[in-house]
């Protein structure tokens, strides 16, 4: 079994819990003393850092959100003087100012350690040739993977993203064994290799660490086949650290969260309340060791669930399911949280490809909210028999109801009924006037 740091990654649960409690109390104190935003928020609630003694006190702490970074742009969330910051990164916000994050020298060391765990979990060791096709620059992906690979002692090819044919050439000439890039770029590399007539089976490439965007099991299969590698999911966000927050082992059964450095929670995005174990909800992180940018209960907007069952790899860290969607897309229908990604998942199972669908929510006076799911009839779904079409409708209906837990109406529509847009398709029409 591949393990970079057996002592920490397989830490005894009791010991881990005590360590986390101790680190949490320290982080809260550090954040309160040095970051105005936290101090104000605690003071308003009449909450003192002393009130947070261990994990059980976590829920007393108010949430931190993305807009805090905008409000305190650029460095207002930092908890150390700028002369201790050795690095900054930034992510482009889709709205307005970018999110700026900073690292002390120790933070950079922690990050390298956590990325070494990540790459080590897929078998990366000294002697490996790591082709790092994550972008270098303000984005955390490039340097994050770079430092982790160097810490392991592997050879890093800092090729960054783009120039796909050259990537394939270098992969062949240098004998790359490890690939770091986004899943969609891995698919492009696989397609390009095939177009160039490269025999991927004969290449020494063995494993890919893919993250920075949501992907699916079917993409995993495609990548593993087209590049003849094991494709592992990695997760992180710059506010919390960058890549290295959670990582898959070779069991490929979810991403182990580095629990000695982060506390992860799942909350109901509409109420902010903690959810029972195994529930699907919004992922929230508290950092435990970061100096420059301590984060308390940061709402990621990512939807996932936890699996605290034992993993065959021996790590004691809890696993999170691959990210299933974003809270930004969430609809609340008759009190039930509905994510477009859930509907997409059901349709993909039935059709086998990414379907075109539209979710229409409506509210008629004095009635309950209606949920309609429009599905375009592709040639793969069509039949000459009414019975077959009705069975299809019923099947989609039944599976959606069992997944969503609410009643709905499935409507089969002609192809191209649902508007296509550049890039992301519009998946939801909400006709309810929710301002009233």
């Amino acid at each position, binding site marked *: 079994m591949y393990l970079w740091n057996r002592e920490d990654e397989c830490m005894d649960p009791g010991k881990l819990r005590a360590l986390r409690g101790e680190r949490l109390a320290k982080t809260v104190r550090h954040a309160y003393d040095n970051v105005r935003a936290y101090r104000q928020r605690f003071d308003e609630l009449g909450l003192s850092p002393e009130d947070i003694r261990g994990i059980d006190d976590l829920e007393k702490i108010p949430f931190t959100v993305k807009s805090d970074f905008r409000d305190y742009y650029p460095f207002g969330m930092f908890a150390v003087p700028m002369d201790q910051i050795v690095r900054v990164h930034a992510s482009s916000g889709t709205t307005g100012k970018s999110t700026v994050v900073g690292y002390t020298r120790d933070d950079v060391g922690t990050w390298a350690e956590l990325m070494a765990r990540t790459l080590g979990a897929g078998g990366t060791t000294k002697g490996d040739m790591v082709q790092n096709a994550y972008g270098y620059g303000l984005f955390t992906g490039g340097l994050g993977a770079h430092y982790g690979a160097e810490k392991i002692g592997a050879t890093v090819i800092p090729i960054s993203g783009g120039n796909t044919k050259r990537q394939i050439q270098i992969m062949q000439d240098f004998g790359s064994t490890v690939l770091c890039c986004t899943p969609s770029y891995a698919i492009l590399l696989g397609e390009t290799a095939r177009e160039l007539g490269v025999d991927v089976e004969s290449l020494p490439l063995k494993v890919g660490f893919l993250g920075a965007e949501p992907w699916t099991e079917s993409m995993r299969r495609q990548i593993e086949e087209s590049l003849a590698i094991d494709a592992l999911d990695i997760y992180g966000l710059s506010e919390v650290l960058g890549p290295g927050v959670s990582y898959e082992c070779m069991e490929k059964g979810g991403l182990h969260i580095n629990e000695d450095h982060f506390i992860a929670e799942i909350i109901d995005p509409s109420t902010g309340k903690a959810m029972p174990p195994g529930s699907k909800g919004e992922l929230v992180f508290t950092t435990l060791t970061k100096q420059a940018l301590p984060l308390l209960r940061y709402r990621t907007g990512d939807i996932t669930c936890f699996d605290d069952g034992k993993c065959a790899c021996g790590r004691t860290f809890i696993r999170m399911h691959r990210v299933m969607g974003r809270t930004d897309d969430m609809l609340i229908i008759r009190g039930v949280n509905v994510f477009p990604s859930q509907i997409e998942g059901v349709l993909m199972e039935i059709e086998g490809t990414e379907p075109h669908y539209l979710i229409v929510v409506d509210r008629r006076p004095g009635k309950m909210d209606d949920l309609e799911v429009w599905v375009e*009839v*592709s*040639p793969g*779904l*069509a*039949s*000459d*028999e*009414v*019975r077959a*079409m*009705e069975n299809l409708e019923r099947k989609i209906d039944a599976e959606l109801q069992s997944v969503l837990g609410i009643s709905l109406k499935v*409507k*089969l*529509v*002609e*192809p*191209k*009924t649902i508007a296509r847009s550049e890039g992301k398709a519009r998946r939801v029409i909400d006709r309810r006037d929710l301002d009233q």
Partner: protein
Amino acid sequence: MNVSQLSVFIENKSGRLAEVTRSLADANINIRALSIADTIDYGLLRLIVNDPVAAKNALADAGFTVTLTEVLAIEVPDKPGGLAGIIDMLGESGINIEYMYAFVGTSGENAIVVFRIEKLDEAIAALKAKGVRILTGDELHSL
């Protein structure tokens, strides 16, 4: 070669059927027979045409979902009991009919009926054994 039938998925919206027939007319396709099965929200238009492949392409280009299905076209004696005789034969052979419709026009003394049957090969064998004439795709399309 068996007879190819086109099925077109059409939403119950005004003007959609007209668009199908217009697309076929523009592609110089002649419709030999048709039937529509309808539900509340949509209909399935089934067509026998002179050139199924060209018709399928024309409709697909116009944005319709079209499937091709093999169906059975049989000459049925154009007299009382003609159809009953054929359906009895299928029933005796344990063959179910999914749906059926009659052809526009006739071939000589006989009418033509289109059958959609799950066990197509079995049906053909059973009917041939009883001396029923089954039309090929070429015969039907060139009528």
